[in-house]
């Protein structure tokens, strides 16, 4: 039987993989992808924690949190995509190492 501990460990591992991508990548799209991986980790944990409240009269609090977090992630993802496109048009580059040094178009 998988309990909340299992979900928490899986969540920690996914978070670690996402963190690796955020630190390693400099391309803005790859960075966004890695951020999305990191953001998925708490969703897994929240769903797992919500399991403990189920079976009785417990309300699915974790689910409500997860839905709100998910919507926020998608909104953030969309806004970051727009900023990435803007960065590309202004600097003709998609590297975030030092965009100030990139040649403006």
């Amino acid at each position, binding site marked *: 039987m998988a309990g909340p501990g299992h*979900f928490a460990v899986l969540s920690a591992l996914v978070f670690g993989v996402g963190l*690796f991508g955020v630190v390693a990548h400099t391309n803005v799209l790859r960075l966004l992808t890695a951020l999305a991986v990191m953001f998925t980790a708490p969703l897994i944990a929240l769903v797992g924690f919500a399991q403990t409240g189920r079976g009785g009269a417990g309300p699915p609090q974790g689910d409500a949190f997860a*839905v709100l977090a*998910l919507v926020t992630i998608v909104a953030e993802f*969309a806004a970051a995509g727009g900023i990435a496109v803007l960065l590309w048009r202004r600097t003709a580059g998609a590297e975030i190492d030092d965009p100030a040094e990139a040649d403006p178009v």
Partner: protein
Amino acid sequence: MNAAAFYILGALVLAGAVAAVGMPRTREAATGLLALTTAAGILAMASSAFFTGAIEIVLSGLAITGIALAIRRGGYGHMAVAPRLSVRSTVLSGAIAAAFVVVLLVALAGNGSDWHSGGGGAALVTLLHYRVPFAAVAAVVALVVGVAGALLVGRPGEDELEYDRTHEARRLREERTERRRSDREAARRRRRASIEGQG
């Protein structure tokens, strides 16, 4: 939830995460991300969180597909060309990520099995209830503002459109000049060849 099902879905989730971060091409990474969110959604559904799982699959799929289409159709394909990771950055990032994971796992192990059981207390689900739809409205507003902000920030401005038009006109002009020059050169060569032929 069944332990075997959890381990299978957990392995899929981890594989998707590794693919999203480690694949060399951005398209493959996006496919990995899609696989990750789908597997996480199925995991949520298998944990009886059907609504959350369905929303996760649908919303994430729409967001990833939308951004991929916007990049492809908007002519920003070169943006997706990412440099390969160097060994140094891979090792450094791996060490940082591994340290974080160790901290998280130690904290979880220290917690033991003393998990909060969500029995009574305030029901957050009531915030999504149709009679008190504050959280639902806040979620919809966040989504709309995020997408509208992305469209506002990402769309080209009037000055950029003007620049693109000027750039394109200059390119066409230079192309025409180059073609005329090469035509003149070819005609000169032909003339010279015919004169030499007559001589």
